[in-house]
């Protein structure tokens, strides 16, 4: 199974699906693929689906950051979707839930 697949939908949205373990062994290659797709496709928005990702290390998070920066460069909206609970924990620790569009609606305090 491929670690990454990239599809452009009709309304100019780029759908990126990531799978398996994203770590120092593959992150830079995957980042390259995703970044190139964003820079060359100039989509209006980028969605990264993490439902099938089982593990992210710091390099894996770094890859999401690079994708976010690339989306920012072409002015595309950037969202990360469907992380598992474990991956969500890691993203929460990275402080990027808001930037990735994963923040809970503001809770009453």
């Amino acid at each position: 199974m491929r670690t990454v697949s990239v599809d452009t939908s009709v309304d100019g949205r780029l759908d990126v699906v990531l799978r398996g373990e994203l770590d120092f062994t593959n992150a830079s290659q995957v980042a390259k693929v995703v970044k190139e797709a964003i820079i060359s496709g100039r989509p209006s928005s980028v969605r990264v689906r993490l439902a099938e990702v089982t593990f992210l290390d710091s390099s894996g998070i770094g890859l999401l950051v690079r994708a976010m920066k690339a989306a920012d460069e072409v002015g595309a909206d950037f969202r990360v979707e469907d992380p598992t609970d474990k991956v969500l924990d890691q993203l929460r620790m990275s402080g990027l839930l808001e930037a990735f569009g994963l923040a809970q609606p503001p809770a009453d305090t």
Partner: protein
Amino acid sequence: MTTDGHQGYLRRLAELEAQIGSARLSADVVCERAAGLLAGRIGCRIDEALAHIRTVAAQQDKDVETVAAAMISALETRQVTPSVRLRRSAEEVLRVAHQAPKPRQRHRPAVSVDDAAPGWAAVVQQVLDAMPGNHIVLVGIRDDAGELVDYRLVAVSRTLVDLSGTAGSRLIGRRVSETYPTIVGGPVWQAWADALADGQQRQVGPFPYVHRDDEQASEHLLSVRVQPVGPGLLNSWVRFDEQTRLAERIAQTERLGNLGWGEWDLVTDATVWSDEMYRIYERDPADGPLPREESDALGLPEDEPLRRQAAEAFGRGETIDLTARAMIKGKVKHLRAVIDAVRDVDGRPVKIYGIIQDVTAREMSRLKLAEVQEELRAQQQSLLAEHRLAAHLQHIVLPIPDGPIELDGLRAAVRYLPAEQASRVGGDWYHAAAAGDGTIVLAVGDVAGHGLQAAATMAQLRHALAALAVTTTSDPADLLTHLNRLLYAADAETGTAAVARFDPATHDLAWARAGHPAPLLARAGTVTELSDRPGPLLGAIRRATYDTSTTRLDPGDVLLLYTDGLIEHRSRTLDEGLAPVLAVLGRVTAEPGPPPLETLLGALRRANPDDDTCILAARRHIEAPPAAPGARHG
């Protein structure tokens, strides 16, 4: 053999021997052969083996050739070459060839030859045993009136297996009408009668022959040559389908294996090449085989020593197996030649035949493979050098103190566990020093990635933090904001960090974090995660902001900052990874008296040995008891 032919043969033999002889006499060949054997035996390079032979010669004060020859006799384990076997089979063929052709004799068969000459049948069987091909010898069976009514098989080639699968030896003695009923009355049947009548040879076919086996019938294309022999008839059978298949199979094998086959008859000076041989030498079959002088000239001069060694081996009666290069139509081809000879009783070659295989593709891929391996080795070396440099750089940038670090109101200790794989050493760092305003700044951080790039980024962050803390601010959130800008601008890696500030005057502890695990505060066996809203990791968002939270540090409280190698593991959740850390921290701080930091750090086990781990523990001093004990009570 004509006199001319014989002289030609002797001349060609003399030429061949001269070639072999010149090769044998060459000192170079002896040395190279010895070096080759030595290299093969001890697994060194040939030039190293040659150097060794020269050294030995110098030590023993002998000439190199003598030492080489001695070495050859010591090292050489002579292989049993197939030449003896080949010679024997060749002799057999030649013997049979002399026996086989029978003069066309007019011969009137005697009446009732059926049982006439059992001794004759046995001799014929011996002849058939020595002859290649599928032959059957029949004798006629006549009735009382002398009319031919049937035929009996009296000798059959051992290798013959008929269409019903019956082997030759089991067919002897059978009647044709019983064994092959479809032949009765057919063209072959007629040819037998005619041949017996006039003693002339007959050729029948190719004709379709219907073979019945139980219910099955199959048709085969056969031809037979009928030759009157003594009182009987020698039938030489050829199955065309089989022969065609065999020829096709050989041709296909040649093509698949890039194999060509050639033969040089020294007696007749005739050279024969197979089709694939023409393809290998890119020559039109109409032009005939390449003259030997021309094909010898195709060899690359660099391979001359190899060819001379091979010629020498051939002279000793060995089979040559040589891979050398030839320049064919402007291209270099690697050709493997397996060459052997049919020799006469004195061991002189009569016929030389060789199988030539074009191994260019294999040789090229072998060479490419060697190149790739060399590149790989070079790359691995440079990677290794990079890892060493990264570890070295980290050591320079991040010297880990042997003992505790004494600070105002705090004692701190650091433990750094480098990744078990050298390649993953990289980006963890710590900071524990007084800031410009007299407060104490404690921090740990982690740069994504490993190797030289990560180590360089780590150095940048650590030095920036140290400088900022002295010159600009000690506020944890402000420090992180600066570090984020720095890393974002560098557009290299991302990083995480947790920064804490202890004010020795107020005992306030402020902290902030950027994508980093929460600091842990342990107080007398109770551990609290200093969780807050974590700010984004460093270098991800241009205008990221961070929040500073505050708490108090009581005497004996232990603050633990660490990087994620301590708790992160791909098969566990972060909470699962954190649990053993909390347990150790709780246990160590529950003991009465000031918790020993070294014990604490030594007891912590990291979750992920594949990652760097950096742990910084700080304990607030327990102030000396007031001068008047119990003064505060009341």
